[in-house]
């Protein structure tokens, strides 16, 4: 945005007293942002106004020229060569006109800049001199038109080229880079007199939509040195090419390498149960370089190593003391031996790897990192007798060291004390940290749990991040993991770390691809299957995700499989005791019974909620080490928090605030770079309280279930104890994707335990057509579910309700649900629900007519009462206001507030009322039918919500 700041202006000094002088200064500091394009927009309007007043000043030749231009536009605009001639022609007109009129001192001229090439990655920044603009035309270039005392006009030039290239590179879609797809996007930019880009037009597409979009997105962030006329900066249109040039080398810290041996055959089905998993047995296989490392280490240590003195060589390489040895003393002794081994055999990476691990265990992280790097340097030296697996191990260890620092500090920051002044929380008394200007952790925790609403605002306003500059660590760590995977594609740790980092970024397609390669390379490592399943679940492909998890369970040990399936944290009390007492197949059975009623989309072939649990458990297992710790518990119950903020205290204690949207954040504390996190005592108490209210939450963005708007009406059936349910609905707009698309319609009648007693399924077109579904309901049915499900998008709309009328079993008069329908005059025909004139409304949309029909049935009136009185009230659901409305029963004349009616002596008493809504304002309402039965001393009432437009 262009700013007219006070630097443009100078002010006379006024002799003012101090108080006024400060006011004067304040007023002088006020300035305005004028829209950069405002000036250029107004100019043609003025010109038109002027030409209308003075048409005679513009000659025939000019009008002809305009006509020719218009013709060219119509005829040849789409053809590149015609466009070129158009530019030349414009040149001619302008040059000619230059002789007639004085050139405008500030007239911007169309310009073409050399393209901005961006390779991925940028290997050699192009020299500045490579970019010369080409002036296509315009009077300003004509020597006769340019007054000699004015400096030559200049054209915009890209400023901060490196930044621009970086910007463009960041917008270059990764998938396209990988696929080697590039292109040139011609843009037309308005570069204002400050050098900012105000308008962006796509001039010439690259033929790849994603690239065009990327160029359009990045353009407003580009900065130019503005064009100038007579030495003054002016705005101008500029033709500008953005060139995306793929480069086989990757520059993305997360990217996985394309290494030949793990590239999949095109038709390979890597998740096909027939080809994976070969993997069986213990996950904790020896690290890939271990055997070779042991041999190298033995060579390096020579006579200094005897098993009786230092323990097995594998222990030394792993940095772990053998059983029965005092760790500290052992490390000191082994450390000395390794140091002399390093001195004796400086080219051997094995003692460096061992010593680095030892140092890390001793807490000497900086030294450990140096040692890993030295070891790496030795290992990758040309001709070094070291296999890729050892290199992979060194890379991985180095990466972990750096990554731990990043993980410990990411999201960290502090909260300014003054942010609290805006809120009030009388219950929270702690005011610690006032002296430092930042709130103490105690204060934050107190506000979080006592005044969560206020605290959310405070965090939003007062949280200052201190994790700046950390991305370099992540880049180093990821580069190490990548190198490890390149050296040894089946490296478990490095693959997992890359995939977890991608998962944290929500880059699920890449997680899926990466997991596939890892599974392929490792011949079916279950961790790869778990991460693949997680990615598929996040992408809404729950069926495939379930298959992945099933495969993983086959390869995992019994213990790990049980741990992933465990639902202990989701249940409480007696249920939990019961569950924990079970083992083996009995436990599986209990889990199946637990999940069955929680299935959010019955129409789909999978229980999404159960798959979601396994997906969460997979992440928790790999990120938090196991599924039994506090962090895993929260993760399993509520999924990924929307935001994590970390506040650190002096002693290296980090407090994590996991934000889940509503309510307090859940707080954890952890020490230093340790991965272990424990709930703070307040967090534990809160989580226990939550168990009663919201033990767990489904919530997945990939497969969404909307509430299906519908009228679900229950009526007594003809058979004793049998009932009938009618559902009037239509495909909601969100799912009505068109006649080419199909939806699964499912009607499920469920027993009290969630078991499916009856299932009716149809394929229908995804169009909004009203439909009435009716089904008899047997006594054992307790709920009914109606669903529309789009298999392609994974979206569903679902209605769940009780299948039976409440109170039907009690003695005395009762009423069915109300069925709202189009208002008609049924005349003298008997009223039945199956009559031709009955047209139920789906209530998907608000009611916009002045009268509706209401059908209902009254039961068990006859022996008790000889008459009853009907009235209808409309209750405003927002204000609670109640108004009576006029009604007309079928077969009667005219509308009245109440009608006295006589019950049918056989079967239910059937009513159809026309209800006048003329006096009902737009809004959210409830229609209430009241049948007063004075002889029985009671009234029966039925209601139905509706919206009115």
């Amino acid at each position: 945005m262009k700013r007219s700041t006070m630097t443009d202006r100078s002010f006379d000094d006024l002799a003012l007293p101090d108080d006024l002088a400060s006011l004067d200064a304040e007023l002088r500091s006020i300035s305005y942002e004028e829209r950069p394009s405002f000036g250029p927009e107004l100019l043609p309007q003025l010109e038109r106004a002027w030409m209308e007043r003075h048409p005679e000043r513009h000659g025939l030749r000019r009008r002809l020229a305009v006509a020719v231009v218009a013709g060219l536009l119509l005829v040849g605009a789409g053809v590149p060569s015609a466009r070129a001639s158009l530019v030349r022609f414009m040149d001619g007109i302008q040059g000619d006109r230059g002789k007639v009129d004085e050139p405008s001192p500030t007239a911007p001229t169309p310009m073409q800049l050399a393209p901005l090439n961006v390779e991925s990655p940028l290997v050699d920044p192009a020299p500045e001199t490579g970019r010369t603009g080409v002036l296509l035309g315009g009077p300003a270039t004509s020597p006769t038109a340019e007054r000699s005392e004015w400096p030559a006009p200049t054209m915009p030039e890209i400023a901060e080229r490196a930044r621009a290239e970086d910007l463009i590179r960041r917008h270059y879609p990764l998938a396209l880079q990988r696929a080697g797809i590039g292109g040139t996007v011609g843009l037309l930019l308005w570069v204002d007199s400050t050098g900012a880009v105000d308008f962006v037009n796509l001039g010439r597409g690259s033929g790849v939509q994603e690239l065009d979009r990327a160029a359009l997105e990045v353009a407003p962030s580009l900065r130019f040195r503005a064009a100038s006329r007579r030495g003054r900066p002016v705005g101008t249109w500029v033709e500008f090419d953005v060139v995306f040039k793929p480069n086989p080398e990757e520059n993305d810290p997360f990217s996985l390498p394309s290494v030949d041996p793990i590239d999949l055959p095109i038709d390979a089905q890597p998740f096909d149960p027939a080809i994976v998993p070969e993997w069986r047995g213990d996950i904790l296989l020896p690290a890939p370089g271990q055997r070779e490392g042991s041999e190298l280490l033995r060579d390096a240590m020579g006579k200094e190593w005897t098993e009786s003195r230092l323990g097995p060589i594998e222990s030394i390489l792993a940095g772990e003391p053998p059983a029965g040895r005092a760790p500290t003393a052992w490390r000191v002794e082994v450390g000395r031996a390794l140091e002399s081994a390093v001195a004796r055999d400086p080219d051997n990476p094995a003692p460096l790897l061992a010593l680095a691990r030892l140092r890390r265990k001793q807490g000497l992280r900086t030294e450990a990192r140096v040692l890993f790097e030295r070891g790496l340097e030795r290992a990758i030296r040309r001709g070094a007798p070291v296999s890729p697996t050892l290199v992979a191990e060194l890379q991985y260890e180095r990466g972990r060291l750096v990554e731990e620092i990043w993980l410990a500090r990411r999201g960290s920051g502090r909260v300014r004390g003054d942010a609290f002044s805006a809120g009030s929380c009388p219950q929270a008394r702690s005011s610690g940290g006032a002296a430092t200007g930042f709130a103490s952790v105690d204060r934050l925790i107190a506000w979080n749990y006592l005044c969560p609403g206020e605290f959310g605002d405070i965090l939003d306003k007062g949280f200052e991040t201190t994790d700046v500059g950390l991305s370099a660590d992540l880049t180093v760590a990821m580069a190490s993991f990548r190198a490890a995977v390149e050296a040894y594609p089946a490296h478990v740790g490095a693959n997992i770390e890359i995939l977890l980092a991608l998962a944290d970024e929500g880059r699920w397609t890449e997680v899926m691809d990466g997991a596939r390669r890892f599974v392929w390379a490792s011949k079916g490592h279950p961790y790869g299957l778990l991460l693949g399943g997680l990615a598929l679940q996040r992408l809404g492909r729950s069926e495939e995700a379930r298959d992945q998890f099933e495969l993983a369970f086959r390869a995992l040990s019994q213990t790990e499989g049980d741990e992933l399936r465990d639902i202990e944290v989701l249940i409480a009390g007696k249920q939990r005791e019961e569950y924990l007492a079970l083992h083996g197949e009995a436990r599986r059975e209990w889990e199946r019974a637990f999940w069955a009623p929680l299935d959010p989309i019955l129409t789909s072939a999978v229980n999404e909620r159960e798959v979601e649990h396994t997906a969460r458990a997979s992440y928790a297992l790999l990120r938090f080490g196991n599924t039994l710790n506090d962090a895993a518990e929260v993760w399993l119950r509520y999924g990924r928090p929307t935001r994590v903020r970390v506040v650190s205290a002096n002693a290296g204690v980090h407090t994590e605030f996991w934000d889940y949207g509503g309510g307090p954040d859940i707080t954890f504390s952890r020490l230093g770079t340790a991965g272990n996190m424990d709930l703070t005592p307040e967090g534990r108490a809160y989580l226990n309280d939550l168990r009663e209210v919201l033990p767990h939450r489904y919530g997945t963005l990939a497969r969404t279930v909307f509430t299906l708007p519908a009228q679900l009406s229950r009526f007594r059936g003809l058979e004793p104890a049998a009932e009938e349910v009618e559902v009037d609905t239509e495909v909601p707009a969100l799912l009505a994707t068109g006649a080419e698309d199909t939806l699964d319609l499912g009607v499920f009648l469920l027993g009290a335990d969630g078991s499916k007693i009856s299932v009716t399924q149809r394929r229908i077109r995804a169009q909004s057509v009203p439909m009435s579904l009716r089904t008899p309901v047997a006594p054992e049915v307790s709920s009914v579910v109606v669903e529309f499900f789009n298999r392609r998008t994974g979206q569903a709309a679902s209605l769940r309700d009780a299948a039976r009328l409440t109170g039907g079993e009690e003695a005395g008069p009762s009423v069915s649900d109300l069925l709202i329908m189009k208002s008609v005059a049924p005349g003298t025909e008997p009223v039945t629900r199956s009559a031709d004139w009955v047209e139920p409304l789906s209530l998907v949309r608000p009611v916009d007519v002045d009268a509706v029909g209401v059908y209902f049935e009254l039961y068990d009136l006859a022996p008790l009462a000889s008459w009853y009185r009907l009235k209808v009230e409309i209750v405003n659901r927002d204000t609670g206001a109640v108004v009576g409305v006029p009604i007309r029963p079928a077969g009667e004349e005219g509308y009245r507030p109440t009608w006295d009616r006589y019950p049918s002596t056989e079967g239910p008493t059937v009513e159809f009322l026309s209800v006048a809504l003329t006096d009902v304002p737009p809004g959210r309402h409830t229609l209430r039918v009241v049948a007063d039965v004075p002889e029985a001393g009671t009234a029966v009432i039925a209601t139905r919500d509706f919206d009115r437009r």
Partner: protein
Amino acid sequence: MQIEQIVSDKVTRTTPAERSSSLPQDFETWYHEYRSSVFRYVRFRVATREAAEDVTSEVFMKALRSFERYDETRASPKTWLLRIARNAVTDHLRALQRRGSLHVSLDRIPDLVADVPSQEERVIKQERIQRLLNGSQTLRKGDQEILSLRYGSGLQNAEIAEHLGISNNAVAVRLHRALRRLKSAVSDPQLDEAQHHD
């Protein structure tokens, strides 16, 4: 189809050299030199940037219509344009007053800028600026006029004197008084509810 659109854009929009040539050269020079001054003057007195743009457009349209009657012996072009602007602002405010919508709300001033470092300071500064502007709108018309000439258009005292047809000294005295009244207006706690009155 897309290309056609783009090319026509380019020809109609990328060749301001052509369209500018149809205006009298003097006028176009003034337009480039004084548009900012006029805009700021107007912006100082109206509630929103959009209104300021409308009024500024009106000023130049009016100036173009009476361009041939402009007499350089009577006023400099800048003074002439600002005089038109003063009348245009008065018309605009009168029209608004008839519609009763003079209230200026804080959330409508995103174009007001103060060069202060932090976001928070910026917000505080904006609130203060809006208070000053609201305050200035409660002043008498003459005070508003002189304040907008100085702080909106950034005119020198001599230019203000020329514009108002008074002496340099009188400008200083009037500015002094206007500032005094503005100061007392912004310390008036009633100000937030204050409505404009001429």
